[in-house]
């Protein structure tokens, strides 16, 4: 088929060749574009098939879901009965069974509080945001008791409840703290800058686990005898400080990427330092930093498992206790797979949300 010729200036817009568009075009371009590509496609296809079928057989087809001990698992696959029996502990730790509805309610409340924070087109967003602002107090009362609710000690917190308490508090407090530290590190004022640099470098230079040990043991030496300073609170403070130091560096990277002209333009309008930061610099810097920020959040969320080492019973701690039970001797994969899946759901959710957010905030191309 010969191409038509056109007079200069008369060339119309033609559709692209059909083989480059649609499903066929996509498969051809992405899976079968060269002999090597075809080879890789076939090999990966087989690999995915074998992994998927064996996981299915182990985890579902040949698995036992109920039973009272290892002896009840006879099918040869996974023994989920253990998870089934201990499920309450995995989720709530040793939170009194009769009070578990409060944890559930707090979780539902958290979802409702996050909804207006994470998305724009939410009905009655303004009222919901007020609620989100009050949520920490609501959750505090719900989980710990007060106002007629039976009080529950934090030592009873465990399992996924503990992960959520540490993770959510850490994330919510460390972001603003990290932003302040990042701004402080770039401050013109020597004193503020020195303090921020010192703090960030110290915290980043120390493993989180040592900070947790400090929280669990050393602090008691410094505090006057007889003061009770809740272990969970101490852990929360350490985790938050740790995370804020990392976030500060992530945010600083974003701040450095903003051209100096932005600040000059804002200041030449007469916006002072704080309004320039709040209205102009931070919205842009944070947008660039989203991947790094979410990366830190996911890291923080998973690092909460370290508290198992200082004796708090997060899902891994509960899991170890479960595996030590003689009735279930010999099991281990099931517990770790279960915990891994729990963490994966939340981490993957955060990761997807960050992609959604990046897409939403994309406006033209920055120039």
């Amino acid at each position, binding site marked *: 088929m010969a191409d038509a010729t056109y007079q200069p200036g008369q060339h119309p817009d033609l559709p692209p060749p059909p083989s480059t568009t649609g499903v066929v075009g996509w498969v051809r371009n992405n899976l079968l574009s060269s002999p090597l590509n075809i080879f890789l496609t076939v090999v990966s296809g087989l690999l995915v098939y074998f992994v998927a079928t064996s996981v299915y057989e182990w985890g579902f087809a040949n698995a036992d879901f109920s039973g009272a001990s290892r002896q009840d698992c006879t099918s040869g696959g996974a023994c989920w009965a253990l998870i089934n029996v201990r499920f309450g502990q995995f989720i709530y730790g040793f939170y009194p069974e009769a009070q578990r509805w409060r944890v559930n309610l707090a979780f539902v409340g958290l979802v409702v509080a996050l909804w207006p924070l994470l998305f724009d087109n939410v009905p009655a967003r303004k009222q919901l945001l007020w609620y989100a602002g009050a949520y920490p107090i609501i959750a505090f009362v719900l989980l710990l008791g007060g106002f007629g609710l039976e009080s529950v000690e934090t030592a009873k917190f465990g399992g996924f409840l503990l992960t959520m308490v540490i993770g959510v508090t850490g994330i919510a407090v460390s972001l603003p703290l990290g932003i302040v530290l990042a701004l402080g590190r770039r401050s013109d004022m020597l004193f503020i800058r020195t303090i921020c640099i010192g703090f960030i470098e110290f915290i980043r230079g120390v493993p989180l686990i040592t900070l947790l040990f400090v929280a669990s043991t050393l602090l008691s030496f410094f505090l006057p005898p007889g003061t009770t300073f809740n272990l969970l609170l101490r852990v929360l403070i350490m985790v938050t400080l740790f995370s804020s130091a990392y976030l500060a560096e992530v945010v600083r990277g974003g701040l450095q990427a903003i051209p100096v002209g*932005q600040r*000059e333009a804002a200041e*030449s*309008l007469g916006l002072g330092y704080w309004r320039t930061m709040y209205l102009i610099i931070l919205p*842009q810097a944070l947008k660039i930093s989203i991947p790094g920020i979410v990366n830190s959040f996911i890291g923080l969320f998973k690092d909460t498992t370290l508290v198992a080492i200082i004796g708090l019973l997060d899902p891994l701690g509960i899991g170890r206790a479960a595996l030590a039970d003689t009735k279930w001797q010999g099991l281990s994969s099931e517990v770790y797979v279960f915990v891994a899946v729990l963490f994966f759901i939340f981490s993957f959710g955060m990761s997807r949300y960050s992609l959604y957010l990046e897409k939403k*905030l994309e*406006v033209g191309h920055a120039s």
Partner: protein
Amino acid sequence: MSEAHVTETPDGAPSNDVLIQIIGMHKWYGSFHVLKDINLTVRRGERIVVCGPSGSGKSTMIRCINRLEEHQRGKVIVEGIELSNDLKKIDEVRREVGMVFQQFNLFPHLTVLENCTLGPIWVRKLPKVEAEEIAMRYLERVKIPEQAAKYPGQLSGGQQQRVAIARSLCMSPNVMLFDEPTSALDPEMIKEVLDVMIGLAEDGMTMLVVSHEMGFARRVADRVIFMDEGEIIEQNEPHAFFENPQSDRTKLFLSQILNH
């Protein structure tokens, strides 16, 4: 005759006619002496074009007027307010002094309209509706009201620079500083920006323009200033400046930019 402007108010007392007064200003970057004994008086309604080779300190000089740069000696007085480290006074001056940059510096995360209403809402404390009315008025004036809902990244360079001018005008400044406003533009877009600036000049805006657009200088400037190596070498009304330059450096500069 160039001396006449400088010596009008020798004791530094600003008359109502004088908008900006720079007296014996020096500036250093580290040990590099960028501005040397700058004396300049800008009267209300005056249009001044500053030219000179790159690195001569022209941008630095006008950036000292709204304290984007700090001077280390001498005085800068804007609308009777002497610039010092007093942040409050700096903000007061910045409110009255509009600035347009070479790289536009629009806020990419805000729409064109939001770029224009930001200052009026947050600095002038105007209600949103009123700020938007003002913004639309100035966007019409720079001939792009139809782009109000777009983001800066979706506009051409010339359009962006016109938005930047509108953004400054929304603050109703008493004087506008232009820092090479057309240097980053494609040739076909320079004219649309210059047209807007000419319109402003015709309406009596006090303007201080760093630019190499000599046609523009001839047409609207009351005074052309030539700077080299941190000093004001020569200043004169445009006709005399271009036809009869006094110093050799000015002659050399003019021959280089006019004959190519």
